[in-house]
């Protein structure tokens, strides 16, 4: 499996990470190497195998649908790079 530069750029865009031209070159090689290596899984016949969806056998727990927490807007915005009156201040999203 060969990852080309266009693929690196597409993936980086999906992941919202800026990559420089130089980095993109290095990543082509590194990602190809790792993806080639994981391809050995193709040797395993999994045609009759269910994918794992939970690690430990236990029933999903249910809880009452009630409010257990809240009224802590000041705590929630306490670490924001920019906040005003308990609102997050973000770059303009809608023109």
């Amino acid at each position, binding site marked *: 499996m060969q*990852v080309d530069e266009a*693929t*690196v750029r597409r*993936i*980086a*865009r*999906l*992941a*919202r*990470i*800026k*990559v420089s031209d130089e980095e993109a070159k290095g*990543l082509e090689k*590194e*990602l190809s*190497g*790792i*993806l080639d*290596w*994981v*391809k*050995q*899984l*193709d*040797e*395993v016949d*999994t045609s009759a*195998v*269910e*994918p*794992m*969806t939970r*690690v*430990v056998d*236990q029933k*999903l*727990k249910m*809880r009452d649908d009630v409010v257990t927490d809240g009224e*802590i807007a000041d*705590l*929630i*915005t*306490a*670490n*924001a*790079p*920019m906040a005003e009156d308990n609102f*997050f201040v*973000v*770059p*303009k*999203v809608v023109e």
Partner: protein
Amino acid sequence: MTDLTKLTMSEARAGLQKKSFTALELTDAFLTAIDKGNGALNAYVLPTPEHARAQAKESDKRIAAGNARSLEGLPIGNKDLFCTNGIRTTACSKILDDFKPTYESTVGLNLWDAGAVMLGKLNNDEFAMGSSNETSAFGNVVNPWRRKGSDGKTSTDKLVPGGSSGGSSSAVAANLCLAATATDTGGSIRQPAALTGTVGIKPTYGRCSRWGIVAFASSLDQAGPIAKTVRDSAMMLKAMASHDAKDTTSVDAPVPDYEAALGKGVKGLRVGIPKEYRVDGMSSEIQKLWDDGIAWLKSAGATIHEISLPHTKYALPAYYIVAPAECSSNLARYDGMRYGLRVNGDNLIDTYEKTRAAGFGKEVRRRILIGTYVLSAGYYDAYYLKAQKVRTLIKKDFDDAWNSVDVVLTPTTPSPAFAFGEKSGDPLAMYLEDIFTVTVNMAGLPGMSIPGGLSSQGTPLGLQLIGKPFDEETLFRTAQVIEDAAGRFAVPDAWWMKG
């Protein structure tokens, strides 16, 4: 007065009970050691002396009043992946900047409710991604152990403490705390424990709450302790484990008294030796370590059985699909809007991209990209779904093995501690560090590393025990037999204390 920092946790507990020293004296001894020794090791990224002294004074009051709790007045280090209320928590990444959580992790809360004293936050690989603690935004952690050359002289070359819990393993081995919290996604408790001569246990998935621990790969992450002895690790895990409504994957089952299991021995215990772990090119010293472990358990009355775990070789490649996939999803939250770093760009997307490029280190970026790729349209079935099917087979290997054995014995790592830069240039070489540990995470089982001997270079080697789900007690009693036979391994010379 004897050097209090050299005590084990259970010895320190006895000393406090007998009032041989106070919790404040004990805490101050560690704070002095951190002052002197942390510069050379870089195990702590944030010592919290005032916080520690306040907790220690509270403990002294409780001890005086006769209502001491299980870890009353015992100073520990806390991996920087655990959120601490009002105290900076970074996962050793620039992207969290000077994030100060407004809540405490459940594991942390359990420890403080048991009376433990927090000395500070410990270094780790960025977001727990690494096997050598070379990816931390706060720089490398140094292993207190040093190699001996063929002339018998100790080299001053710096060795890695393992990772990702490298601050935890280094601090425990260097007597900069009695024990430490740690987390393990592919081997991050057991591998650093093996490389530093300490004891580390990753309990069964679900045994400890993951609430308030910075997430890496949620179906694999699990908290556990690194400690000086098997008994100390039993004390720590008992306090850390709990059912927690805030983590739906935490298990609603009683937490046994692990210390009570320690003396039970291994008479009649069936120990499995998986033939697939005898990998090509295994060094003779790792082979000897394994043989020693087998001999010790045999002479204590256990029976030894060769078993087969046929899908072992596929665990690591499957892990490097599942873990990056979950990481890319978990780390999507770092967008520069609600907490942590923000680097302003020309528009919203540019701000996201610049923030994440500046905030994440190289290995973290690499894993996010791999994860994004294997989850992207057209590749999901070929990679992610395939890996989760292989994972079912890995778990089935163990389920079948439990029909004939009670516990599995393997080496923890393929080699002893290595030097900085020795593996960091090649991601695949670094990933192979976890070859013996990662199956345990994929199957959700408990695994433990116990010091078993020294390499030809005089550095520690670890033996790994793997148990049935929620059967940590068998690991503890088996580990105690190994510790009794192998002895404890302390660093011969405290060079880091000499400035």
